[in-house]
């Protein structure tokens, strides 16, 4: 049984402009000790779906649907007080900006101590010893004196290390990392990713890594889900996703990250257009306004997530036939522009 299983999750926010369908029927799961990457642009629902796992999006104007099963218990319907015991103890979370995520008025050590004492009836002294131990574990130099520093006295990388220490201080079974490296310098990014990877290997914690950057999850996740407009549009084991990506949006993401093995003068290709409004979803396939390979029928038919060539672990929501997709990706992977690839591949006029 999976450690966490999200089934057909929907999250809707009532606003003055209308109902925002932030998460629109998303399913994913992660097993103990494994790691899952969730990739997508801002507004794709990747953060909201994971904040909802911990009930952090609860409010009078939020509506939920589906199930979030963690070790057999449904977190979505769980009372606040019960869910509070899961937060930080069994599932922990770290966020994008470590400066704004730590309370500016409290010492780093006190914030770690608070995390321990929220769940364990231990003395301040014992909790503080544990805090020092954790700071040491995440590689903060001189943890015994740094434990009394304020967040603004730490560098960006150290703050994120402290956040990781705080998240892992109660040895949770699952760590959700929401864009943990986006606000950091590139050199520090690599260190933080290595740290998370190392700690995951040492502690066996399952990890959900949320990012807009496929490069971040390439090396450290077992499986990747690609989200677009509140849905998962492609799901595959990491190696499979990089070897044979199926969705035109995934192709766009892949071609927008720099690669060391491509020629130096090759230009990065951005995905044209902007993410769609989640209040008025585009008709048919939500990606069709931005898809270079759109057919007329795609504006009417809403694709479902279906296995690729009968593989259970690789699913895609795309109306193009698998043959057409394979041919298109061959051209794109060779560095051809989308319109040239499109011209080179014969495509049927209806939904295939």
């Amino acid at each position, binding site marked *: 049984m999976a450690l966490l299983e999200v089934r057909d999750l929907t999250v809707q926010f009532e606003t003055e402009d209308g109902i925002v369908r932030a998460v629109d029927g998303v399913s994913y799961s992660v097993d103990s000790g494994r790691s899952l990457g969730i990739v997508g642009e801002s507004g794709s629902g990747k953060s909201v779906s994971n*904040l909802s796992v911990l009930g952090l999006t609860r409010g009078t104007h939020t509506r939920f649907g589906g199930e979030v099963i963690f070790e057999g218990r449904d977190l979505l319907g769980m009372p606040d007080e019960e869910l509070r015991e899961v937060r*930080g103890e069994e599932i922990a979370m770290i966020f994008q900006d470590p400066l704004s995520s730590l*309370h500016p008025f409290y010492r780093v050590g006190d914030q770690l101590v608070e995390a321990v004492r929220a769940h364990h009836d231990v003395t301040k002294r014992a909790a503080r010893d544990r805090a020092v131990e954790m700071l040491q574990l995440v590689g903060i130099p001189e943890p015994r004196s740094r434990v009394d520093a304020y967040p603004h006295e730490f560098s960006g990388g150290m703050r994120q290390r402290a956040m990781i220490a705080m998240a892992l201080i109660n040895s949770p079974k699952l760590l959700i990392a929401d864009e943990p490296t986006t606000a950091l310098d590139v050199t520090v990014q690599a260190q933080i990713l290595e740290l998370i990877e190392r700690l995951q290997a040492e502690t066996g914690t399952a990890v959900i890594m949320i990012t807009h950057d496929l490069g971040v999850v390439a090396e450290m996740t077992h499986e990747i889900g690609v989200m677009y407009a509140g849905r998962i549009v492609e799901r595959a084991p990491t190696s499979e996703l990089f070897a044979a990506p199926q969705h035109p949006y995934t192709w766009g993401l892949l071609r927008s990250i720099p690669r060391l093995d491509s020629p130096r003068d090759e230009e990065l290709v951005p995905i044209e257009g902007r993410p769609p409004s989640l209040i008025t979803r585009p008709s048919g396939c939500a990606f069709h306004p931005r898809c270079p390979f759109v057919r007329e029928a795609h504006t009417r038919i809403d694709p479902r997530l279906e296995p690729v060539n009968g593989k259970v672990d690789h699913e895609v929501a795309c109306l193009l036939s698998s043959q057409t997709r394979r041919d298109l990706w061959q051209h794109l992977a060779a560095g051809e522009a989308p319109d040239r690839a499109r011209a080179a591949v014969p495509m049927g006029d209806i939904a295939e």
Partner: protein
Amino acid sequence: MTRYIVRRLLGMVLLLILVSAVTFLIFNVFPSADPALLRAGRQPTAESIARIREDLGLDRALPVQFGDYIYNVFVHQDFGRSYINNTNVLDQIRQNLPATISLTIGGVLIWMFFGLSVGIISAVKHRTVFDRATIGLSLVAISAPVYWLGLVALYLFAPDFGVFGLGFLGGQGSYTPFSNDPVKWLQSLVLPWCVLATAFAAVYARLLRGSLLDVLNEDYIRTARAKGLSERRVILRHGVRSAITPVVTILGLDIGILLGGAILTETVFNIPGIGRLAYDAILRGDLPIVQGTVLFGAFFIIIMNLIVDILYAFLDPRVRY
């Protein structure tokens, strides 16, 4: 920190001299009652007036008068004597200060209690009926002038002539110093405290509500929830702890202003405080008393400002002087 405080205290002295200069100028440039004439009795003669002018030092050049005053104040702590009844200004202020301090402290406690609790509940219950109702009511409380509110309160609750006279309250002019009779002191101040606190409580509730609503959207509040802290702890220890800083700033200023005399409240309830003293002195053209009360008012405001700034360094570890 010490250097900062010393610098601020020096600045304070300069500011106080400036304030006295402005008061002094206002009194001498604009037409006001001639203090010598006021003192000269029912049948003033030109001679007696001239003698009184000489006694009071009013016949000297203005810059000399001012320089003399400043010298006496800052070197001898001598604020002069009242033109009207010849009492020592400093003694008079000392005598009236306890009433003002009593009024201020009680008012602050009441408005902080109601203002903060209503502010926190409104922010937590954002957009509920409670929130909308209290925020609407607070606007009424802010708009109601203190003297009107005071008169209405007396009309309704004064023990002697009030419509619903509350026997245990002291009425208008019943102020008794704490040292004489603590029970009567309390009875005499309950109504003024409530009247004074009403508008302030409303302002503070709105201020804290707004500030807390902003803070509750901060990332570190989400972190606190993600840690599994109780909602109570999230709101109080993490939310209010941050949201309270602007409130502390305003509180310092308000206390400073009130210690300089809550003129309206003191006048309506006839409480012999600094505000009442200043009000009477202005009516009588009693410059030394006016000067003294204005200087004290300015002093309290400046000192409270300094205290707030120092407090800030303790409230927010990022602030360093």
